[in-house]
C-alpha cells in the first residue's frame, strides 16, 4: 500500500473551529498544499481576514498577520513594496473583501500591486450570524432578509471579479467553486497559477474567487449546500477565467 493522499505539512495538525461542511477547511488545505508544492513556505506571508477565517493563522504554518476588517490589500501593498522578494497573499471572505474592503481591493488592483488575493465567496456574513452580504443572491433568505433578498430594497449581488476585470492593474481573475472534487482540483490549479504569477514577478494583482458553502447560515445540510452552489450560485456567479493577461 502506498499513501497517495495525506495531510500536507503547512496545514497545522490541529482541528479547525469551522462548522461541519464549511468550505474554509477545503480552501485552507488547498493553500497549504500549493505553498508546499511550490516550496515557498519560508518566504510566504499570509494575511488573515476578519470573518470566519480570522483564525487562519492558527491553521496555516506560514508567517501570518491579522489586519483590520477589509484592509488586507492595503497591508499587502506595504508588505510587498518593502519586501519584494516575499510572496504575499491575502485570504479574505466576502464580508471582508466585497463589503467593508471594496475600496481597498479596487485601489490595490487599480495600482497593480503584485499580490495574490484568495476571495472566499459564501454569499453571507458567516461570523456574525448569517446576515445579508453584498454577494447574497436575489431571493436568498438570510438573518436580515427574512423574505429573501429583494433588488428594490437591497440591490443586486456584487460581482467583484467582473468589477475588477475592467481594471488594467488586475492581471489574473478566475472564479472557481468547491462544490465537487473536480471543481476543487480546478480551484487548486487557479490558486496555484495566481501564486506562480507573483513568484515570476508578473506586474499586477491576481485574484481567485472561490464559491464556498456555508451550510449553517444557508440552513442546509453540507451536501445540499454543495448542490445549491452548483444549481443557484453559479447562475449569478458564473465560473471560469475572466482575465489572464499573462496567458493571452
Amino acid at each position, binding site marked *: *500500500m*502506498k*499513501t*497517495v*493522499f*495525506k*495531510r*500536507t*505539512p*503547512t*496545514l497545522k495538525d490541529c*482541528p*479547525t473551529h*469551522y*462548522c*461541519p*461542511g*464549511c*468550505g*474554509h*477547511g*477545503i480552501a485552507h*488545505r488547498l493553500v497549504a*498544499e500549493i505553498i*508546499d*508544492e*511550490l*516550496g515557498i513556505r519560508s518566504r510566504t506571508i499570509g494575511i488573515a481576514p476578519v470573518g470566519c477565517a480570522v483564525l487562519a493563522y492558527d491553521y496555516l504554518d506560514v508567517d501570518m498577520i491579522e489586519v483590520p476588517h477589509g484592509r488586507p490589500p492595503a497591508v499587502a501593498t506595504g508588505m510587498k513594496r518593502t519586501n519584494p522578494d516575499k510572496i504575499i497573499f491575502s485570504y479574505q471572505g466576502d464580508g471582508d473583501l466585497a463589503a467593508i474592503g471594496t475600496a481597498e481591493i479596487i485601489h490595490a488592483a487599480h495600482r497593480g500591486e503584485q499580490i495574490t488575493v484568495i476571495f472566499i465567496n459564501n454569499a453571507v456574513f458567516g461570523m456574525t450570524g448569517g446576515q445579508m452580504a453584498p454577494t447574497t443572491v436575489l431571493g436568498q433568505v438570510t438573518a436580515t432578509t427574512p423574505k429573501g433578498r429583494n433588488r428594490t430594497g437591497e440591490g443586486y449581488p456584487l460581482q467583484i471579479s467582473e468589477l475588477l476585470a475592467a481594471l488594467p492593474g488586475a492581471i489574473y481573475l478566475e472564479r472557481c467553486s*468547491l462544490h*465537487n*472534487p473536480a471543481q*476543487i*482540483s480546478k480551484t487548486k490549479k487557479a490558486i496555484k497559477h495566481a501564486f506562480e504569477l507573483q513568484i515570476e514577478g508578473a506586474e499586477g494583482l491576481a485574484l481567485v474567487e472561490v464559491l464556498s458553502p456555508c*451550510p449553517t447560515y444557508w440552513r442546509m*445540510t*453540507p*451536501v445540499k449546500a*454543495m448542490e445549491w452552489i452548483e444549481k443557484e450560485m453559479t447562475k449569478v456567479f458564473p465560473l471560469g477565467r475572466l482575465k489572464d493577461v499573462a496567458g493571452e
Partner: protein
Amino acid sequence: MAGKITIDTERCKGCGLCVAVCPKNCIAISDRSNKTGYYPAQAGTDSALRKNDSCTGCAMCAVICPDAVIEVSRNSNNIVAIEPGRKDKPSLVRKKTKTDSSFSKYD
C-alpha cells in the same frame, strides 16, 4: 482491495460530504459519536452498517474533506503520490512506462 482510506474519526465532524462523493459507496456515517459529539464518517472496511471493501483509492473523499482527516493509500506500485515539493503537474495519475501502456498492472 485496490485502495484504503483511514479516517481520523475523533476529528471528523460528520458533514457527510465524503459519503456523498464516494463513487463506490463505501463510506458510512457511524452510529456512535466521537468525543466532540459528532457522528463521524467511517471507512466501509470498519463500518458495521455498510460493509464494503470496494475502495479504489481515488481520493475524492480526501479532496472534498473540509477537515483533512482522510488519508488514502493505494495498492499499486506504479502510482505517483501527491507529495509536497512535486513541481510537475500530474498528481493522482499513474506513471507511464513503456511496458505498461494499458495500465494493466493497475489493480
